[in-house]
């Protein structure tokens, strides 16, 4: 039963996500409406200082990039059909090194599929967003607290690393309403993009050991700014394939990997002596947490890993899964997309999945899979 001192409300995840984004430093929302991201769009109209309705998803990403070039931190929310249209522009924004957050609310595919059914089917799409396989920092939300903390981390990561960031979620996370106590949510400090303050020539793509170059918006008229999506040198001048330009392109990947520890978020509920590990992400984390409670009540020893940072895959996940004989990866898709990213096509003995589409995976399915070999 509830304690009267708490701040109880009946809310959906979209409300928490939107509030967290703004508090973290995002100031502009550009959106094209798509189910099931509608609530994020609706809340953005109320909360973001600037909210623009774009005519389509390609325009959305281009406007966002323009806002970022002008010194803003933009956000959008979409679902697979919209994300598919955004792909080329996301690559452009990554190459230009523009901070932004793209919220991808997963729904049942393929193609238009069923707009009002949830899914976890878009991880592979995000993994392959950029030509060359370059990494986009990608987060997912496993519960209401994550709607707050992970959303804020997505904005902070975009700002700190000057990169687009993807926040993966799903229909049931952003649209389901539940009783929630917000009294223990941590404060979110706003972040700003670090700007060049030197006196000499400004090199838009020259980075120190952090591998993150200092930013300057085109709103100032002290230093010339050159921004380009084509292969370029530190000045932002298009190059075919000079060593300097190729090194700059490599830096994009090195940059997001160098700082990976600073944005690695996960929950690891370890039970000493357990030989079985349940791994999950996004909406299936709800069922996974409940299944682990049930399994332990039955006397089954089991550990639980909830991945919140999905891409690049943090090394700590590999370290953890290697310690377990049996690993059960739970996700609402047919092929086990995260499982394949963790273990490859060859898999590994003792690795199985709990998968399904068109319905949320039930805790009993996870319990059954874990107990299958007992």
């Amino acid at each position, binding site marked *: 039963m509830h304690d009267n001192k708490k701040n*109880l409300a009946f809310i959906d995840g979209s409300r*928490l996500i939107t509030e967290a984004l703004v508090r973290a430093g995002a100031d502009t929302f550009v959106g094209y409406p798509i189910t099931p991201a509608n609530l994020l769009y609706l809340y953005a109209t109320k909360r973001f200082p600037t909210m*623009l309705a774009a005519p389509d998803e390609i325009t959305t990403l281009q*406007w966002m990039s323009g806002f970022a070039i002008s010194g803003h931190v933009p956000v959008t929310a979409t679902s697979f059909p919209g994300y598919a249209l955004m792909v080329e522009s996301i690559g452009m924004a990554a190459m230009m090194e523009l901070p932004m957050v793209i919220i991808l609310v997963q729904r049942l595919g393929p193609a238009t599929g069923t707009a009002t059914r949830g899914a976890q089917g878009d991880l592979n799409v995000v993994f392959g967003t950029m030509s060359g396989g370059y990494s986009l920092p990608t987060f997912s939300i496993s519960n209401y607290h994550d709607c707050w903390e992970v959303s804020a981390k997505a904005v902070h990561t975009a700002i700190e690393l000057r990169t687009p960031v993807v926040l993966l979620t799903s229909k049931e996370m952003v649209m389901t*309403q*539940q009783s929630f106590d917000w009294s223990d949510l941590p404060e979110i400090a706003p972040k700003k993009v670090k700007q060049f303050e030197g006196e000499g020539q400004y090199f838009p793509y020259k980075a120190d050991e952090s591998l993150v170059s200092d930013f300057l918006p085109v*709103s100032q008229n002290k230093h*010339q700014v*050159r921004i380009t999506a084509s292969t370029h040198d530190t000045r932002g001048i298009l190059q075919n394939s000079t060593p300097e330009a190729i090194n700059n392109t490599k830096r994009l990947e090195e940059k997001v990997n160098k700082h990976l520890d600073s944005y690695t978020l996960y929950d690891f509920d370890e039970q000493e002596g357990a030989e079985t590990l349940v791994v999950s992400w996004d909406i299936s984390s*709800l069922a996974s947490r409940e299944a682990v409670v049930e399994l332990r009540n039955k006397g089954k020893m089991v550990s639980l890993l909830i991945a919140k940072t999905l891409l690049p895959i943090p090394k700590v996940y590999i370290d953890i899964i290697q310690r377990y004989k049996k690993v059960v990866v739970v996700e609402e898709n047919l092929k086990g997309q995260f499982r394949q990213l963790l273990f490859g096509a060859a898999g590994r003995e003792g690795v199985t999945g709990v998968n399904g589409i068109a319905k949320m995976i039930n805790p009993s399915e996870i319990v059954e899979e874990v107990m299958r070999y007992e």
Partner: protein
Amino acid sequence: MNSKNFLTDSQLPFCKGCGHALVAKNTEKALQKLNVDPLDVVLVTDIGCHGIVDKSFLTHTVHGLHGRSSALAAGIAAGLNNPGKKVIVFTGDGGATIGMQHLIGGAHLGFDMTVVVHNNMLYGMTGGQPSEFTPCGFKTPTLPEGSSKEGYDICELMVAAGASYVERVIGIGDYSDSLAKAFSSSGFSLVEVMEICPSYGVKSNPGIKLSQVVENAGWNVKVFADGKGHSFKKPLKENTESLISEKLEIKPKYQSEIKKPVSILISGSAGEGVQSAAEFLAKAGILSGLNTTKKGSYPVTVGVGFSASDVILSPKPILFTGSTNPDILVITSADGLNFARNTAAKMTSGKLYIDDSLDVPETGAQVIRVPFREKLGARTSSLYAVFYIVHHEKLFPIDAMKEVFLSNKISKKVSIESLLQF
């Protein structure tokens, strides 16, 4: 006129005789006439031969994707929100074709920017393919018989879309005054510069005169619009209210006697208040000290077909918010019955409350037939149903339902007394 340079001293990166070089030089001259600072200018270039000119400019430069330069520039213009800045787009006829929606949308919304279309009537960078701007009869290396269709008249399109300044010029000699006029217009402006590609256009159409091609195509060389447009203003709200505030707070004041989670599925028709009724039930649950979740299911159509909602009421925290076999299934309409038929069939226990006008589906649940629809009408059937089950299942005090209902505007249309007739 200032003497500031907008171009570097290096040679422009174009073929000999290409009109693109003249666009760059006329742009510099126009900006000098307007006495603009180079770093108050943002040049956004598209993909194509013209787009590699950015390294020659001393302004801010942005080089993006094919066809998207106008949308990218619109974002910059909106983000800057400063009429003192000049946002200029260089695009070709190919980029303009791909980005036609961006051009129409930009003119329609009035973004403060100027688009300079380098129209040489073909794709120069990729080997001389025809574009949607290629006029009838004009030949290209991949269309040696000549185009059989008319090309776009971008100027007429922009006028129709609401651009503030639109002009077509022949890209020969000094046309800097036209560019200066466009650069100094507020809102969205476009200048189409007619050119012939020396590598493909001239070779495919020997002896052809640019002015003759333009005339034959029926494209007027003139000012199409001057000053009737509007200027986009970035929407900006100061100090928007937090979405998490005390306004949302629900302070428990009643007591529920349930000892374990109760899962309820309400299945009815769109437009009959299913989602609202489920929300009242969940909020009243919180008011009674319970943890609650509500998950909606519906087709993509808003006002037709089924509408269903899963509600969980629990004295303990709820981890999994999805649907399992419900303890209580409530069916208020034929749409609801069709949606929940499989759920009913899987139930081996629990209760099925079903409107008495409906056939009872196969189920192992205890069946209770209630005239939900007859009692207060179809539109209130789901609301009446949740009052009914709260009362009969003793989920929590009915006063909690009353309180939530009376705080909602629907209480002005439906009397609370009618909902309490069990």
